């Protein structure tokens, strides 16, 4: 990708914030373990979803996701995932992927509550995340010193998610 993808907004006093596309992550899963949560009220649960692999792609980082080296330990409202990435130069990069998920009815476009999934009702899941990274000294250490915002979309058949990360400039 040659053209940087940027998004900018300006406040009432002229403060601007700019997001610039950095890289993406695909995560493939083969099982989702769900624990009913006792303390959060109806429709809450804790989940364990571990990646069996995936890719890191985009302008600023390329590599892969190490299989079964971390998981999303999320709960119904949000998620809190830990993964290990390996850049193409071999560097190991830890990512903590924390964020919020929304569920939408595919037919009506209406937001849905975080109820147990109903296979008869097609829903769309969108995520917004704010990840943090730990990268070793070297070409990737810039990720340690910046804030990122991410877009996430969950797909089925095969079960995978794709996150698009933007550096908050």
């Amino acid at each position, binding site marked *: 990708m040659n053209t940087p993808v940027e*998004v900018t907004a300006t*406040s009432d006093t002229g403060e601007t914030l700019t997001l610039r596309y950095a890289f993406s992550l695909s995560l493939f899963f*083969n099982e989702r373990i769900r624990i009913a949560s006792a303390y959060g009220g109806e429709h809450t649960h804790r989940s364990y979803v571990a990646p069996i692999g995936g890719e890191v792609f985009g302008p600023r980082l390329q590599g892969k996701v190490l299989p079964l080296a971390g998981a999303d330990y999320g709960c119904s*409202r949000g998620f809190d995932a830990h993964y290990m990435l390996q850049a193409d130069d071999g560097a190991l990069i830890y990512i903590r992927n924390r964020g919020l998920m929304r569920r939408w009815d595919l037919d009506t476009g209406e937001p849905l509550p975080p109820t147990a999934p109903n296979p008869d009702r097609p829903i769309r899941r969108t995520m917004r995340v*704010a990840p943090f990274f730990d990268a070793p000294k070297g070409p990737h250490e810039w990720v340690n010193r910046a*804030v990122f915002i991410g877009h996430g*979309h969950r797909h089925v058949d095969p079960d995978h998610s794709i996150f698009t990360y933007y550096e908050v400039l």
Partner: protein
Amino acid sequence: MTEFKVPETTTKTVGQVTLQFAFRIDAEVEPEQVTATSRGDRLFQRIVGGTISGPLLNGTVHPRSGGEFGLGRSDGAIELNTHFMARTEHGEMLYVTHAGIRRDADGYLRFAAYFDAEGDGPHAWLNDTLVAGSGKRAPDGRGITFTYFVVG
């Protein structure tokens, strides 16, 4: 070790996000206190009060309800965690937390903000909305202006 067959990633489109100015908080803070710890410099700035204004939220910062907690790392970046309570113009209390990075070398202060609002109140949308923000520290060390943008 178990080997898994992982498909090629077929979807390589860039997921699009939007940014929308939401509100700003002009916070009054006490001078920063620095404690040298084994993990780095622990920084603390109490938030004394402030005003919240903008198209999506108006109110005040609940007096002395929190502060900005930083950890100064050996690479020059400061890991920020900020916690305080906001009171909306309608009297509802919101819990506000930031997780971010500050770099004093170039004045970078950016964060992701999360909110806890009443589940059936007018600000419930904050509960499942990701908010990105920036901070600008006053030269005299007694104020920080936080500007918040909804990530759509």
